[in-house]
Structures are given as structure tokens and as C-alpha cells.
């Protein structure tokens, strides 16, 4: 078991290579460009396909073509680039093709900045492209987890003919940590019965997202929904820390969960019975975990690096039962553990209001501080 010190973006790239990805198409954008650069020498080294496209729009459409062949394919980008890719994402979903896309989130909206953020949760989980489609969204919080979830992403994509998003942020993409890489998988030699590779020895096929007849389009949408029900039944992943005797809960994903974990550990050392819930699959969302929060839980703190996107899913899953507070830093600012610890203290020391929306109460506090 050998560990290597790797940068998050490069670890994801190598994990994809080991998972048997045959083509990568991308475009430079900070903070994920290292993934593209790594692929630009690693893929040709292995005789696999690499193209730096003319734009993210070009890249996602190259992925669309490659996905039609049935071989594993992927792209990566960051928030503004992912916005450009959403047309392609909708088409790929509408054609029911497997594909892996990495979104290394940065501050926005607009051009924003290159600092880490989590403000693309809605874009990835609730669909940013048009139409009724759902992507499986995986949110690692470390370089090792990024590696493991990358391998899982390709397997899930093939299993469910779906798009799988690996949702990290600028800090996970840039940080260097020790990780163990998986073994090199052999490339596929057999292909699905929809794969388009030239009709030698069989009837010809075509892949399209067009269904001019609304009844046929409705059938297709039902098929996507039935597939999603399967995904929800089988693929939810969530990690809980210190929850057995918890009276308070902190919850978040990715970097904010990791930062909150430090605060939770400190609070535990202080004697506060606080636990952490960290969804790993943001889609399918671990609704039951929040629905099952016992009435013994006196308060829940949702921590995100966005203005309350996962917050809404948490509140809905919890059926608004547990008194909930919210804490966030926005625009690429990364919270420190002691900021979260301060919020835990406040939650424990003052009764949580059930008036109004947690986000509004948080914002009022922030603006009052001036």
C-alpha cells in the first residue's frame, strides 16, 4: 500500500486514467487547469485521446461524441466553464449516455474569482441544463476521497447510463495530500447495445436526443425517472461522525464539512455533544438521514460556502422539525474552523429561533456586524 503526495486535480486525473478513461477533452480554467495539463501528457503516453478544445462548449461536445462510442470519457471545468457545458450536459442526459464531469467550484456568480466556493450545488444537483434530468453528484472532502469517488463515478456512470459529477472546489483541487491510487484497470473490450461504432456485422443504430412525438418524449422521461428511483434506492452515501449521543448536529459537504469537522472535534473536547453529518452523494440526497433526526437533537447548524443551497434540501428532508441555523462564507471566502466553532457555541448557548428562515437570520447577523 503505497501512498503518494498528490495535488487534488492531478489525483483525480490519474484516478480516471486508472479507471479506464479512454478520452479526455477539456479547456483551461482556474482552479482545475492542472487536471487538463496532467491529461495532456498522460493520455498520449498511454495512447489514449486528449484534446484541448476551443472552449468548454467544444469540450463537452467532444465528450458527447466520444460517449456515443461506448468508451469511457470525461471532462473537467470550473463554475463559469461548467455553465457553458450545460447545453451539452442536457443533450448527453437526453441521449442517456454515461459520462463523468468534474466541477472544481470557484467564487461567483459571473467571472467571480479563482478562490474555492460551493455555489454550484444547485447547478449540479438541481440541474442547470434544460429539461428533466438528474446527475449523480459526488462530493469528496479530501484528495483520497476524490480518488476513490472518481473510480466510483465511472462505474456508476456505466451502470446507470448517467452523468456523474465529481464536485470539488478550488481548495480540494489545489491541496496536496497523501493518497493511495487504485490499480490500473484494463480498457473495455465489450460495449453496450446502444454504442455507435460503425454498423459492421449488425443493423445500423443512431443516437439522438430528439423525440418529435411528445408521447415518445414522455416515455423517455419516464425511463429517466424510473432509472433515478433505482439510483436513489441503491447509491446514497453519507458519513456521520459522533452522532450516537449527539444533541446538536452540524452538517455540510466537501470542504465546509471538513472544516466543520475540526470545529466539531474541538467542541467535543469542550464537552459539547455535537455530531456531523456529511452527505457524500449530494444527488441522490440522503433525505432519510435528516428525516430520522431524533427529537433529542436540540439544534442543527448547516455550514456551506454558498448562500444556502444545500440548506433548502436539508430543511425539506428534515421537514422543518429540528431548529436549524445557518452559517456561510461567500464569494470564494473559506471559513476557519473557529468561525464554525463560534456558531456551535452560539447555537448551544442561545435558544434557536424558529421565526423566519435560517438564512435570513444569519444574514441579519452578518449585516449587523457591519
Amino acid at each position: 500500500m503505497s501512498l503518494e503526495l498528490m495535488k487534488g486535480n492531478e489525483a483525480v486525473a490519474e484516478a480516471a486514467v486508472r479507471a479506464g478513461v479512454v478520452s479526455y477533452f477539456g479547456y483551461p480554467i482556474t482552479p482545475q487547469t492542472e487536471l487538463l495539463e496532467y491529461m495532456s501528457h498522460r493520455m498520449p503516453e498511454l495512447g489514449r485521446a486528449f484534446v484541448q478544445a476551443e472552449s468548454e462548449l467544444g469540450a463537452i461536445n467532444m465528450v458527447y461524441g466520444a460517449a456515443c462510442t461506448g468508451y469511457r470519457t470525461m471532462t473537467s471545468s470550473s463554475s463559469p466553464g461548467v455553465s457553458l457545458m450545460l447545453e451539452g450536459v442536457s443533450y448527453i442526459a437526453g441521449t442517456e449516455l454515461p459520462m463523468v464531469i468534474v466541477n472544481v467550484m470557484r467564487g461567483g456568480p459571473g467571472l467571480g474569482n479563482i478562490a474555492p466556493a460551493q455555489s454550484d450545488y444547485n447547478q449540479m444537483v438541481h440541474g442547470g441544463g434544460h429539461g428533466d434530468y438528474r446527475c449523480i453528484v459526488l462530493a469528496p472532502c479530501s484528495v483520497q476521497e476524490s480518488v476513490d469517488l472518481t473510480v466510483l463515478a465511472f462505474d456508476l456512470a456505466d451502470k446507470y447510463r448517467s452523468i456523474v459529477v465529481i464536485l470539488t472546489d478550488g481548495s480540494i483541487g489545489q491541496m496536496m495530500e497523501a493518497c493511495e491510487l487504485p490499480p490500473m484497470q484494463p480498457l473495455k473490450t465489450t460495449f453496450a447495445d446502444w454504442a455507435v461504432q460503425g454498423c459492421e456485422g449488425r443493423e445500423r443504430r443512431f443516437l439522438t436526443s430528439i423525440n418529435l412525438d411528445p408521447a415518445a418524449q414522455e416515455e423517455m422521461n419516464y425511463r429517466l425517472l424510473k432509472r433515478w428511483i433505482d439510483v436513489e434506492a441503491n447509491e446514497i452515501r453519507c458519513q456521520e461522525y459522533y452522532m450516537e449521543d449527539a444533541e446538536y448536529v452540524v452538517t455540510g459537504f466537501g470542504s465546509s464539512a471538513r472544516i466543520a469537522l475540526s470545529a466539531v472535534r474541538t467542541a467535543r473536547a469542550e464537552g459539547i455533544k455535537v455530531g456531523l453529518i456529511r452527505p457524500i452523494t449530494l444527488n441522490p440526497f440522503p433525505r432519510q438521514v435528516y428525516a430520522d433526526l431524533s427529537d433529542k437533537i436540540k439544534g442543527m447548524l448547516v455550514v456551506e460556502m454558498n448562500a444556502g443551497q444545500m440548506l433548502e434540501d436539508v430543511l425539506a428532508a428534515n421537514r422543518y422539525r429540528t431548529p436549524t441555523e445557518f452559517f456561510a462564507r461567500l464569494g470564494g471566502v473559506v471559513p476557519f474552523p473557529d468561525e464554525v466553532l463560534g456558531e456551535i457555541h452560539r447555537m448551544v448557548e442561545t435558544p434557536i429561533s424558529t421565526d423566519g428562515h435560517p438564512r435570513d437570520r444569519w444574514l441579519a447577523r452578518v449585516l449587523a456586524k457591519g
Partner: protein
Amino acid sequence: MVLENCEIETTVFERPDSLTGTTTHYCPGCTHGIANRLIAEVIDEMGMREKTIGVASVGCSVFIYNYLNMDFVQAPHGRAPAMATGIKRVLPDRMVFTYQGDGDLASIGMAEIVHAAARGENISVFFLNNTNYGMTGGQMAPTSMPGQKTTSSQTGRDVETQGFPIRVSEMFSKLDGASYIVRRSLHDPKHIRMAKKAIRMAFETQVHGLGFSMVELLSICPTNWGISPLNSIKWLEEKMIPYYPLGDYKIHPALAEIKL
């Protein structure tokens, strides 16, 4: 079924195998039908039907995958060259082509086609230029000529506010990655025969690994031009050919060696 009486006659022409039996949705007289057929004839003559993957675009030809009997994928508007790149990079030994109209290729898809050509992707592009957006009812396209009336330039294309058309073949002749760039026309049998030879040369460029090939085909659009097919042919000859001269804009030197 139509049979020849082989004892006394030969078949001069019959529907190519690579055309499905589906009746097309193209308007009467639309030269898409001719281009579709020429591509089918060439692919049959090359025996490449089972090793070819077509990339359909968005426009009147969106359903070309219903008319050509081979593997096909359907691209978003303008993105066919990028999809073709993805397929060709993964399956380099297949013949991959795109079939695009002037709105798809020269407007929304301009970045994708220029870069596919610049990269010298080994794909073949068939570019049907009829100076308007046909499928959506005849709007101005990047190829609509100055003064041309369209539904979005109803008093005629005004170059002051609506700019000038783009001559795609001329533009591509300057790209080092482009290897076979020609403009032909589909308006009469002589030119249709020349167009077929060009389609064959484009595929040969690809098969010999010589880089990017494109055949621009001047086409008619009777419905949106508002005139009969026969008058559309005249309009193409009198108005389009002077603005978009037919000819060879870039020919890779190695193509001279290829004997068909």
C-alpha cells in the same frame, strides 16, 4: 420492385443501398436530397457503409439519420465538428463525417468548425450553403448576401447594420490544418457530378489520413426564397455563384497522387 431486363438492358442508375427507404421530409426540389444521395453513392462505391459514422446537425437536415443507412449520432446546433472530433479521436479507423447547413456551421458553430479545421481533424464536412436558415422559416444567415430579403432582413440585408456574409471556403483556405477545401454546386447535372467527385475526394483525404476536408455545396431553398425550384436554380447561377465562386480553395499536395 423495379427490375432490369438483364438480357437487353443495363441499369444506368438506381437508388444507392446506403439510402434507407424512408421518404424524406425535404421540400420538393430541395438539393439536400441530392447531397444525401451523393454521399450515399460515394460511401457505397467505397464500400465503407459499415465503417462510417455520420454526425447530423440541426437544420432542415436534422433527420438525415433517417435517410442514410449507417450509424449516426445527432449533434446540438453547431457542435457537430466537436462531436465528430470526439468520435474520430476514439475510433480513428472509422470514417466520420458531419453534414451541416450554413446557419449551423457558420453562425453558432463557427468556433467548432474553425478549430476542427485548424487542428486538422481527420473528418469530412459537407456544408450545404443556401444563404438562409431554412428549418426555422428563412431568417438571415451568415451567408445571406447583401440586399437579400429574408424574414429577419425584410427590406434586404443592410450591410451597415447587419454586416457582410462570410465566405467560408475562402476563409478556411488560410488554415494550415485544412487539407481539402472546395466549393461546388448542386444546380445542374454537370455540377452535381463534380460535387460527387469532390465528396469522394473529401472521404479519400480522410481515409489517407491527410487532415481536414470540407466540401461547400451551393444549394437552393425554393420554399424560403419564395420561388419555384426551377427559378431557384436560376437564382443560384445568377446571384450565388458570382458571390461564392466555385473552385478549389485548398488541396493537399498528396491528393494529386490519389487515383480513383
